[in-house]
């Protein structure tokens, strides 16, 4: 052979599915976009600023951390962007922007980087940021404004530009979320309003329909394990439905629990975070059922109107244990508990 050919030596397999981790992250972000656009529709410029702030500070935190520690830059994997966007979706539209920035910093730094970066964290980083804000600034985190529409896009829904730590609250016209109306006033918001999202709440608590569409897309493309949201929905239906049967006056019907608050966002986009959820299918079922159960428990009997965040964080902490106890039986296993099938 005359021609010179440079041959590459590597180890099999030489075929490879094309979609890499950054591509998966991008697709999850796209799946979240319809609901994010709905947030812009309902909460206008305030929602936009919260998203921009949360995303840019998430990227900034990770970028600076990598630079300071002379690590390979990881911003292009898309996970910081996704964390920032998810955090924004859990925040009220009227929140002071410096809080969103601080939340993003905590989400990335304490939620992810100190564990060793992408793939090593135990808890969902966005929810770590959100829990930190909830504990530090309970008032701002529970100040809600009514949903508007594109007509008042330019109206600020809250004191966006306040001085950090000095001036937490400025009076705005506030309203209650469907969950707090239910909890504290016994008022049930109509289903269609919940479903389309025309109600007060966090950016991502609005349209159950659009979140479901995004979730469906992710399930079809195998970006999330469908068992987790299905288990959550099923557990909420059974537990909340059971309570409602016992006392319809006191307990809300199951559909109210399903379509109100952060349940859709949490079940489809937070609990399904592959890093912090179990790696076995059986584990995912248990994980989802646990979340659904805890959500209804906290919402119904706890002091807070909403419990999705704590439910997911609590179950995140159980994931490693679930992984350990739900390892599937391997092909041909011969230990005492699992006799290999030797006869048909």
């Amino acid at each position, binding site marked *: *052979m005359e*021609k010179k*050919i*440079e*041959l*590459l*030596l*590597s*180890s*099999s*397999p*030489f*075929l*490879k*599915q094309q*979609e*890499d*981790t*950054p*591509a*998966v992250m991008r697709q999850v972000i796209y799946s979240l976009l319809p609901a994010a656009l709905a947030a812009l529709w309902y909460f206008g410029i305030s929602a936009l600023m919260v998203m921009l702030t949360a995303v840019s500070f998430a990227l900034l935190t990770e970028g600076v951390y990598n630079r300071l520690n002379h690590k390979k830059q990881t911003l292009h*994997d898309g*996970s910081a962007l996704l964390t920032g966007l998810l955090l924004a979706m859990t925040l009220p539209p009227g929140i002071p922007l410096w809080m969103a920035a601080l939340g993003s910093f905590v989400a990335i730094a304490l939620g992810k980087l100190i564990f060793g*970066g*992408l*793939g*090593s964290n135990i808890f969902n980083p966005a929810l770590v940021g959100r829990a930190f804000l909830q504990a530090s600034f309970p008032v701002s985190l529970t100040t809600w404004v009514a949903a508007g529409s594109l007509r008042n896009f330019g109206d600020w829904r809250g004191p966006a530009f306040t001085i950090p730590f000095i001036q937490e609250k400025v009076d705005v016209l506030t309203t209650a979320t469907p969950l707090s109306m239910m909890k504290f006033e016994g008022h049930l918001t109509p289903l269609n309003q919940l479903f389309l999202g025309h109600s007060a709440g966090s950016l991502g608590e609005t349209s159950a329909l659009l979140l479901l569409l995004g979730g469906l897309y992710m399930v079809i493309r*195998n970006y999330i*394990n469908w068992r987790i949201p299905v288990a959550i929905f099923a557990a909420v239906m059974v537990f909340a439905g059971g309570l409602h049967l016992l006392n319809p006056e006191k307990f809300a019907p199951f559909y109210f629990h399903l379509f109100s608050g952060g349940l859709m966002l949490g079940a489809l986009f937070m609990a399904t975070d*592959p*890093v912090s*959820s179990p*790696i*076995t*299918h059986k584990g995912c079922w248990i994980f989802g059922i646990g979340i659904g159960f805890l959500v209804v428990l906290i919402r119904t009997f706890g002091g807070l109107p909403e419990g999705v965040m704590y439910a997911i964080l609590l179950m995140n902490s159980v994931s490693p244990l679930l*992984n350990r106890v739900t*390892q*599937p*039986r*391997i*092909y*041909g*296993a*011969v230990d005492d508990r699992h006799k*290999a*099938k*030797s*006869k*048909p």
Partner: protein
Amino acid sequence: MINLFGKRLPTFSHGIHPGDFKDLTRHLPIERMPFTDELVLPLSQHLGAPSRARVKVGDKVQRGQLIAEPGGFVSIGLHAPVTGTVTAIEPRHHPGGKMVEAIIIKTDPFSPQTFYNEHSMEWESLSARELISLIQHGGFVGLGGAAFPTHVKLSVPEGKHAQFLIVNGVECEPYLTADHRVMLENYEDLFLGIRILQHILKVKQVYIGVENNKEDAIEVLRKNVPGDMACEVIALETKYPQGAEKMLIEAVLHREVPSGRLPIDVEVVVNNSGTITGIGQMFRFGQPLIERVVTVTGPGINRPANLLVPIGTRLSDVLDYCGGLKDNTRQLLFGGPMMGTPQSHLDVPIMKGTSGILCLTENEVVVREEYPCIRCLRCVDVCPVSLNPSRLGSLAKSRDYEQMLDFHVMDCVECGSCSYVCPSNIPLVQRFRVAKGLLREQQARNKAS
């Protein structure tokens, strides 16, 4: 799985669908490659002890003549694929990467290349032991790629017996079509080979497992099964790695080979269809294993083909015969893309276990950036033995090989499905191979001390 679309074909659980890429050569009849001027025959073409040379430099050998005898029980005979002269016995590049002792034969250009001893062989009156010895000295190994000596599989240990023979016509590796063409064109030899194996093993039922991307082969085999033979052709759903022995047994019989045991422990013997065809041919023509069908394929080769190649023919000669490589070729593999071995020297010989030559171009060979594991579960979903490749991968990365044993790394069949699906491009199976090698070494050391 809930079945909504009628009867599904049998298969194993998990696995991947990498696309079969077989259209390049699927319809090309087997063509005989001409003899080349020099052949290289490594004494170690198989798993087990190397064969022992029985010829000296300068000896004249005839096509089909024994030139090396088995070097032990797990070893086989080796025969001259051409008539010619032994010019050297020296270390040469081996497709496995090392230098290995090989017999070099210079082809006699004037020889008619007739067999050393052409005759059909009587088998019905022979005992199992005699037949097994004939197969061992005939130099037969599994032609699917692993090159495990066939007679060892046929030697059923005392106290065990085989009830089923499964003929492996799956050829689940993408691109390869050698077994496919052999089943289509040489089915008579295949059925003769099956009869001989039935005679050796005393099995009551034979299954031929073929994936349904080879519909023509399934049809031809079904039409030609001898009426008196308890043999069923099973069409299987196309899925990788169905050709792995354990997976094929699961697909056909719904039995599982217990961890660390052999198919015979569930009363099954599995053999590659090409191997059995070769055995049939030996008893029909007296021809030992001196040539095999090789699929030369891939986007990098100018003229893809299914070639009948004398064992020992150099890779460069085969590539030249197939019109040469395209300029953008970056990788040459022996075997298929999932489990094949990359080659760095064009003078390596075609071996008994070489099922294909795959030429990949820079379009297919992409070095991808590795990302951290995000535990997306895809590897868990595809592992045919239900391992946890994600966990094993992180243990391998931290070199915690001991704990990998607890996660059953030794049950890994090294099919590479996990590496195929990993979106973070983690070299999972590559690390498992290293770990398994080190663990085996350590176990051997422990046993020795």
